[in-house]
């Protein structure tokens, strides 16, 4: 779990959060059938803020961030993303999704398209950019995630770490305002975790609004403005990393942290 060394607190990247509320969840409840998966979620994210979400498996972390781009729909409460409320008959859901990038645990690259085509697909078809322009942007981002000379390969010819970096570049090519990461390093071999986290740290330095579900506590200490702990569908506790790691308020949080930092 501690693939990145825990940095000293002064290595924490300065917060870029503004006062503008870019995500607002109020009284959000969600059920899968009879199973109550999200309970009275209250969450405000400001533009430029970086939030790390952690918690035991099955606590609803994925469901929470998937509600933000409406991959899951909630039944009660209000979610407002960049001024648009998400509800059942939201018409411009595709427009919102175009502004919210998402990176998945399993990468979910398109195996039938080359790395470059993976990155240009949505800009061409959703943003209607000319192909040359989309390629220029894609090459720039692929360079930034350090995928050199691989742009004409197919995803399955790359290593896991490379694939995840392509997935990040693919999301960035849409020039999103918010990036959601759902356990981006959990499916990777240990030696590849760092190369992906490095890319995410750089992204954080540039002031991207990020919601990251991860158990990489070193990353959380260095990057997060706020760490959120979830259990059984509830946000148990949220605090700045300093407070969260050194002085958690709830016993549940302490138990979780001691488990995850044990080795």
């Amino acid at each position: 779990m501690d693939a990145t060394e825990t940095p000293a607190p002064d290595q924490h990247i300065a917060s870029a959060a503004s006062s503008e509320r870019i995500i607002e969840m109020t009284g959000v409840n969600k059920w899968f059938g009879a199973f109550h998966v999200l309970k009275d979620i209250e969450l405000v994210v400001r533009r430029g803020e970086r939030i790390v979400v952690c918690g035991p498996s099955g606590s609803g972390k994925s469901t929470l961030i998937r509600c933000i781009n409406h991959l899951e729909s909630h039944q009660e409460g209000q979610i407002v993303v960049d001024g648009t409320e998400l509800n059942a008959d939201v018409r411009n859901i595709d427009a919102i999704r175009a502004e919210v990038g998402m990176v998945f645990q399993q990468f979910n690259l398109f195996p039938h398209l080359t790395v470059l085509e993976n990155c240009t697909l949505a800009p061409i078809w959703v943003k209607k950019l000319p192909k040359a322009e989309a390629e220029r942007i894609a090459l720039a981002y692929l360079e930034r995630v350090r995928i050199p000379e691989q742009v004409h390969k197919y995803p399955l010819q790359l290593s896991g770490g490379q694939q995840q970096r392509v997935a990040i570049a693919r999301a960035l090519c849409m020039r999103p305002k918010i990036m959601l990461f759902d356990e981006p390093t959990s499916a990777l071999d240990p030696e590849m975790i760092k190369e992906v986290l490095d890319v995410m740290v750089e992204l954080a330095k540039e002031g991207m609004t990020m919601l990251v579900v991860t158990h990489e506590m070193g990353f959380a200490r260095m990057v997060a403005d706020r760490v959120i702990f979830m259990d059984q569908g509830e946000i148990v506790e949220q605090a700045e990393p300093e407070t969260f790691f050194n002085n958690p308020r709830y016993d549940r949080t302490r138990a979780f942290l001691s488990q995850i930092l044990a080795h």
Partner: protein
Amino acid sequence: MAEPARTFRAKPDRPAPAQTVGAVGWMRRNLFSSPANTALTLIGAYFAYWVIATVVDWALLDAVWQAETRRECLDAVGRSGACWPGVFVWFENLIYGLYPKDQIWRVNAGFALLVAWLVPLWLERVRSKVAIGVSAVLAYPVLASYFFLGGDKGFLWSASIAAALTAFVWVWATAIAERRTGRTLGELVLARADALDADPRHHRRLLFYTAAAGWLVAYALVALWYLPYVTTNDWGGLFLTLVISGIGITFSLPAGVVLALGRRSELPVIRLICTVFIELFRSVPLITILFMFTTMLPLFLPVGVEVDQLVRAIVAVCLFASAYMAEVVRGGLQAIPRGQYEAAAAMGLGYWQATRLIVMPQALKIMIPTIVSTFIGFFKDTTLVSIIGLFDLLNMARAIGEDTDWLGLFIEPFFVVTLIYFAFCFAMSQYSLNLERRLDTGQRS
């Protein structure tokens, strides 16, 4: 105290032992790896020799090549050699049915046109391949049916033929333009008119006028063009088999895609309609569907409306084939992980975009072997149209043995028909293997 770290150096690669590579290595591993394997190899080789020798004796060495009737053949060699003259006399019918002899060039021209239409798809540096493929599916049948049918044409018929002709000219013009200049015909036209930078609506209008001008010229030519009418009753043999199976196969893929998507739709009505259709046509043998269409269709049509027997057969085959193809495509769709849909949705792609760009290409690709097997099945199933009195390749072969001169001559025509079917089906399956290899992007590694 720790020793200083040692430097690791990888050993250089050595070539594999000689017994495991090359032709000798291959034979050792695959044919003679054990006594049992060696025995099987020898028995198999002897069996293959025996079959081939028997067939060669019958078909070539002992065969009769010149005779007037089957009687003469029997007198000469009995049953130990093939009697080819009967097949020679009937060969044209095996291929073209009863199509008038002086008009047969039209059938050949129609198939040559298909090849000409498809050739640009295999050329390098051609960019508009999708559009060319679509034009082949939509426009080629119009032009081909006038070649095959002929007869008088009203305005609509002429207009469609002219449009198809325009499409064909466009296919080759743009293919040549793209190979020579790297730009499509449309781009060249716009460049010529200095309109590349103008607003897109202007582009569309300019291209539309160019196409319309092409169509007018084509219309004038088509109006002057007349081919005598040939009734579908005279169609037969390989020609008929290819027409029925070609239409069935071409129709089944898009229809199957639509039905498969419909069956997975979130709208209950659409899902119900598609499910009922698929299950209905899949649970009834093709023969039954063919029978129903010939005997029961008139009940549903107004009195006096006659539907050509061939059209009935084609409609029946199309419905049957699309129901089957729908299930094949659905199998492919089920193999696509949810993450693919989610990744597409998360980037803002809508349902149709995700289906067309992400899901379908992958689903169809994994299903290529099954799709082609199904095609091969359809191709062979067309032999059933003989039930409703059409003289397809197989039925034509059977007819030879009923000719008074060649009474009882069945084996030879069936042998030839077997070779023809084999050639087509083998070509299809080889093409599918080739396609799989070319589209492979590493999933199977």
